[in-house]
């Protein structure tokens, strides 16, 4: 495993760890689904998400 791959593994584990923490201590940390709801609830969040989504799709399939 390269250092680069190890870094991504750490990011994935951090997401899993924070999700677990949010599940056990909802008063301390917003869950991923809570973040999703927050971003969808207002115009700025929706626009940012659509922008990222559009860029991702274009980058993956069109280049």
């Amino acid at each position, binding site marked *: 495993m*390269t*250092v*680069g*791959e190890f*870094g*991504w593994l750490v*990011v994935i584990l*951090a*997401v899993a760890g*924070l999700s677990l*923490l949010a599940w056990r201590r909802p*008063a*301390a*940390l*917003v869950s*991923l689904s*809570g*973040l999703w*709801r*927050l971003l*969808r*609830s*207002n*115009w700025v969040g*929706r*626009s940012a*998400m*659509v922008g990222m*989504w*559009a860029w*991702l*799709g*274009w*980058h*993956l*399939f*069109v*280049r």
Partner: protein
Amino acid sequence: MRLSGIFRSRLRWWTLAGVFGATWAWWISAQATFTSAVGIGVGGAIALCVIRVLRASSVSSEEESFTARIWPWLLLFGLAVAWELFELRGSPRIAHPTLSYLANLWILSSRLTRAGVAATWLMVGWWIVP
């Protein structure tokens, strides 16, 4: 009676949307990159989603304490972006893998997984608008 009519109408709508989305994803997965066809296909999906965002009405936000409870996520997002940029500057790619490199290697190399990614991308775009 009326409820069952609504249910049937929704079921029909979701079935149509599912068939359309799956067909689109399968078709997109067969297209080569940098072609007009794939550009029109993906651009059309993006245009549909942008129209939905522009037409959507605001939904009431969550409680105020939300902002105090999201900073670990923001920190992690910042670290991930920093790592991506760090890897992007390094070479060779195999030693400094970016997310695009890993995606090409693991999930975009076969048509089936490519179609799965296309279908998932389309569904996420639909779910963004409440």
